[in-house]
């Protein structure tokens, strides 16, 4: 528990007279350790702690009755402000259909989240066409079709075709069917796979999505920053869905991803069922990261 550890540090220091900047530094090292233990990437933890230090010195933390608690509050508030600051609502186009693209690493939960999103939008009065643009993974198309039939929404597929053409024709099909929204499920891929990242850029070019959502597993480790920045540099991520938050991982990847994309977390996946999608609560995630 970060507050206990900082409390212990300042209790030990308080016997030695007036506190100084080096004492703040020691406390901040402890903050950094807590973030690293929560899987926040080293670079994101360093820049976060630097901004906390600025605030701590500015707030004259050393004059406070309990500097440890003051620092924890600054850390918590800063986390909530960062994670929850940006606009978390989905952006739609004025001229339908609006296109939402889901992208991310292999196995992060894109296909499942595509169906969850479609169900959520349906409950809000928007009907979506799900587009099966993963032509590589065995039975990926079938997986999306099963999910689509569970929520009674259509799935556009062309078997093992060209994902760019499938996306483009999917949008035409949505227009023809009078559907307001297209949700494109893409194949998982590594951000270092040039050919596949290029494919995503070409899909983007073909369908002009209003949302490119980075679907990330909440238990992703140190590489969350590298992966997110790879996708962001190539595509421009507009939002994040953090999945498998029903697990017990601390979820520091959220801060890593935010630090290189500035993109808001729009939804959180909290289970395997199609109903298991929640809006994002920055205060809950901040407490979870701080343990």
């Amino acid at each position, binding site marked *: 528990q970060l507050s206990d550890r900082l409390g212990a540090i300042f209790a030990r220091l308080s016997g030695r007279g007036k506190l100084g900047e080096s004492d703040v530094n020691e406390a901040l090292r402890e903050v950094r350790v807590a973030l690293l*233990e929560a899987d926040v990437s080293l670079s994101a933890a360093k820049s976060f702690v630097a901004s906390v230090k600025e605030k701590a010195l500015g707030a004259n933390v050393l004059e406070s009755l309990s500097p440890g608690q003051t620092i924890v509050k600054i850390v918590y508030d800063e986390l909530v402000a960062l994670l929850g600051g940006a606009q978390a609502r989905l952006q739609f186009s004025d001229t339908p259909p609006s296109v939402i693209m889901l992208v991310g690493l292999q196995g992060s939960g894109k296909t499942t989240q595509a169906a969850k999103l479609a169900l959520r939008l349906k409950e809000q009065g928007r009907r979506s066409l799900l587009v099966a643009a993963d032509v590589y993974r065995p039975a990926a198309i079938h*997986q999306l079709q099963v999910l689509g039939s569970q929520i009674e929404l259509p799935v556009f597929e062309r078997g093992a075709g060209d994902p760019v053409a499938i996306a483009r024709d999917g949008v035409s099909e949505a227009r023809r069917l009078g559907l307001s929204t297209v949700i494109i499920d893409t194949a998982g891929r590594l951000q270092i796979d040039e050919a596949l990242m290029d494919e995503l850029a070409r899909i983007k070019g073909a369908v002009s999505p209003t949302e490119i959502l980075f679907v990330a597993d909440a238990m992703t480790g140190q590489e969350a920053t590298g992966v997110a920045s790879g996708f962001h540099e190539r595509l421009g991520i507009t939002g994040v869905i953090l999945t498998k938050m029903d697990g017990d991982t601390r979820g520091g990847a959220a801060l890593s991803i935010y630090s290189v994309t500035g993109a808001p977390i729009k939804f959180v996946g909290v289970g395997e069922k199609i109903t298991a999608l929640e809006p994002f609560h920055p205060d809950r995630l901040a407490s979870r990261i701080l343990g």
Partner: protein
Amino acid sequence: GREKRPITAEFWEELEDLLIVADFGVPTTQKIVSGLKTVAKQEAWSTTDQAVARFRKDVERFLTLPGAELNLTSSPAVVLVVGVNGAGKTTTIGKMAQSLRERGKRVLLVAADTFRAAASEQLAIWAQRTGSEIVRGAEGADPASVVFDGVRAGVSRGADVIFIDTAGRLHNKANLMAELKKMYRIIEREMGAPPAETLLVVDGTSGQNAISQAKLFNETAALTGIVITKLDSTAKGGVLVALVDELEVPIKFVGLGESADALRPFVPAEFIDALFE
């Protein structure tokens, strides 16, 4: 990795950072670096190459455990494959089936993930690709009943290896872990022995949560080995050191891609080399 500078406080910080960004985790990193610092004093090291050499030697020895190959001496050998959602279980089974088929073994795949959309279809494609047989259950059937049918079928058909593909499950879900325990007990009862192998498949891009995964899965179904997938990504998979520390079972394989041939035996020296790349 190859340079030869004087050992300074900066060097130790750099080594710490290297291990942290490789997902070694804070406790493991601190243990390793403080251990090296102690030996550095005792043996009066002067240059960084001495520390790196000792690091390599210690970690390689630590990660080298007996039983790094699949234990397929029983006939049929049942291999139970478990892990959290999306780790790469189904794909890894496909890869292992491929390699056994190339050695002329008779392989049966059991589709005990009866929950997730198109799970058994996905496994069926791997069966077809590798020339393996497959046992599937009815949609939504009790996974334990599919395990039972699968093991019976494998025994009666004279399969050499039976792979049980289970649904992804998060280790903090008591009901899902109870379901896994039931499957494990059915195998024990049918075979008169625990599975020949119980493999935990861990996503190589995951952080420290893999440790609690390992603990809880091991309590439910005694693990005999670990497979780390997706190491073709930029992740280094450093949490595997803590996994070996925790479980004392070997890392058997690493997944290096999505195709049937993208599975290699785990070689500690290769893992260490990759850290310094």
